[in-house]
């Protein structure tokens, strides 16, 4: 085994270790949420994942962005077959270990090149959309700072990786043509052959240098990118799959009935209930928690996974009627805030244990009441999300906290509640007048 193989093994090991550690950390954070049972209907769940995540069905609602995204997605998945070869070559010191496949290998390498070029092109177009065309959903206030930088870094990363791959291919072809040792004649080079003039007049040693440098840059870049994921919105390339699998399968209009409320209301309405009965001990031993959500640990783990899965594309916000008419609410910001707060809360928990309070909360420190009350619950955001994220359920849970724990609804809504309670209608009409329409002309 040569030194270079050892270095490769070491890089691979370190990259895997840190990535694994971060994945465990994210999983731990997600599990800080409340439990919710999504173990039912596994067939439907697999189908949803196949259709929405694998099949990108909701991406193409917007044809331009959808098409470009599919290019990058397909390119990314297929080019990763090449990474397998690179890893094997790196581990055992071979060069183009799959070359024995002959014509099929040439076909594969040729398609990788075309895909790499298309990915590169798509990423450049994406950068233009973000930075030159300034499409509204990419330049809104919540995108200032890190989110904007994050988005551009991802695109630059991909452009650089694809360029390194194509340059490596070109150098390899040049070496094959020159009959250099070690460089077997294999593959096809529909794109990188255009780069051949670059190597005219160079010595074999120089071209080998370029080829090796690109090879190392490409694979180390991929490992670095892998480790960038857990810190970035780009984590969606992994989480989109579990996120769609565990997404809500009920009709969008069906809001959950809170079980904790159900038992109390049932007891209240049961004429045989003993008002002085001591609460049943055994099963109620655990703290029932607060009604609704004030902080991230009041949300359930699916909602928290949603936050880590969000790639901040802003389709939700650009369809939101409140946002489109200038209100403060942005469903994307709800998800970004949830993730930011969860990261902060998770760090605090790591240092101080699970019950540690840090004096902050998702409500007020991140999401304001004005945002929450602007929602019309129209489900445009959940419909628009390409990976079935549900910002509405978070808004509803936070409203529940405001109303049931703090009695902090806007005055007009409190009046509405009183009317429903007293008259059985949201307006102040006496219940006895309910059938009056029957006798009116």
């Amino acid at each position: 085994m040569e030194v270079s193989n050892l270095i490769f093994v070491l890089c691979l090991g370190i990259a895997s270790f840190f990535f694994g550690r971060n994945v465990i950390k994210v999983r731990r954070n997600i599990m800080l949420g409340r439990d919710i049972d999504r173990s039912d209907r596994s067939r439907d769940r697999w189908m949803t994942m196949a259709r929405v995540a694998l099949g990108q069905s909701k991406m193409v609602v917007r044809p331009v962005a959808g098409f470009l995204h599919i290019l990058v997605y397909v390119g990314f998945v297929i080019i990763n077959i090449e990474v397998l070869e690179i890893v094997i070559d790196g581990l055992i010191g071979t060069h183009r270990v799959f070359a024995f496949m002959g014509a099929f290998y040439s076909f594969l390498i040729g398609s990788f090149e075309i895909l790499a070029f298309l990915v590169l092109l798509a990423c450049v177009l994406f950068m233009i959309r973000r930075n030159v065309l300034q499409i509204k959903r990419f330049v809104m206030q919540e995108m200032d700072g890190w989110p904007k930088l994050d988005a551009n870094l991802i695109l630059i990363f991909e452009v650089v990786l694809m360029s390194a791959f194509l340059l490596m291919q070109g150098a390899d072809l040049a070496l094959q043509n020159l009959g250099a040792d070690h460089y077997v004649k294999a593959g096809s080079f529909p794109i990188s052959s255009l780069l051949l003039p670059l190597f005219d007049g160079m010595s074999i040693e120089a071209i080998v240098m370029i080829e090796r440098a690109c090879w190392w840059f490409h694979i180390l870049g991929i490992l670095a990118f892998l480790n960038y994921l857990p810190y970035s919105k780009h984590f969606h390339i992994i989480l989109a799959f579990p996120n769609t699998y565990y997404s809500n399968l009920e009709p969008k209009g069906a809001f959950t009935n809170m079980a904790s409320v159900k038992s109390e209301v049932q007891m209240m309405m049961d004429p045989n209930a003993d008002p002085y009965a001591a609460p049943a001990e055994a099963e109620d031993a655990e703290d029932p928690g607060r009604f609704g959500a004030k902080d991230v640990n009041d949300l359930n783990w699916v909602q928290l996974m949603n936050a880590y899965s969000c790639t901040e594309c802003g389709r939700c916000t650009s369809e939101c009627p409140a946002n489109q008419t200038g209100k403060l609410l942005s469903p994307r910001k709800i998800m970004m805030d949830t993730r930011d707060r969860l990261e902060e809360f998770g760090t605090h928990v790591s240092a101080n244990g699970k019950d540690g309070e840090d004096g902050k909360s998702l409500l007020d420190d991140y999401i304001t009441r004005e945002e929450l009350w602007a929602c019309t619950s129209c489900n445009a955001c959940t419909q628009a999300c390409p990976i079935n994220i549900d910002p509405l359920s978070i808004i509803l849970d936070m409203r529940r906290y405001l109303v049931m724990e703090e009695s902090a609804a806007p005055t007009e809504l409190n009046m509405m509640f009183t009317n429903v309670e007293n008259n059985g209608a949201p307006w102040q009409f006496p219940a006895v007048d309910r059938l009056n329409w029957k006798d009116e002309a």
Partner: protein
Amino acid sequence: MAEMMAKGEQPDVLFWVGCAGSFDDRAKKITKAFVKILNHLDYKFAVLGTEESCSGDPAKRAGNEFLFQMQAMANIEVMNAYEVKKIVTTCPHCFNTIKNEYPELGGLYDVMHHTQLLQSLIDEGRLTVEGGDYKGKKITFHDPCYLGRANEVYEAPRTLINNLDAELVEMKRCKSRGFCCGAGGAQMFKEPEKGQKDVNIERTEEALKIQPDFIATGCPFCNTMMTDGVKNKEKEEEVKVLDIAEMIATAKDL
């Protein structure tokens, strides 16, 4: 319902009128139009009358789960006592709540929106619809969120409009991408938050852009919001906002 029960009869369907349909002057017209159609067909239906109470939808969307479940369980108790099986309602909010949120609380019914019932009556040949005043007129349909996205009912109202021999024109944002009227999520009962524009104005502008003769709705709240929007734009002479039940009733001279 109580009268029918006393006579030992069961209706074919319970018409859930809803609070808007019972109390709001504009929405009462929708209720009456729908009842006229049912009476015209001798369709055996009943209403709960004073025994009906708010479905709990606005309370739930505003975050008051206690109040919602109290309303729901009281309504379920009444309906189960009458052995209600099938419900039709002109309000998509009641429709959604009773259909999707009552079952878990003990209320299992076959729930329909009035446009679905009317559609099935046409399919069965019981109801025939002529164009009347609407023949050849340009009608656009505003999808109620709780009928459309929430329950994926997009076609029944559109088929009814086509039955009127009218020209159905779609707004840019329609069906699953339909734009809210601004009333959902209990917004109907409060002032909107600060912004550049009210949601119903934005939607009305979109509707007026395609210059329809009528804006058709299937929800009493959408109806109010769109009517207000049209008035705000001073177009109430040119563009009428009507529920599809009202259109069918007037087309049949009922």
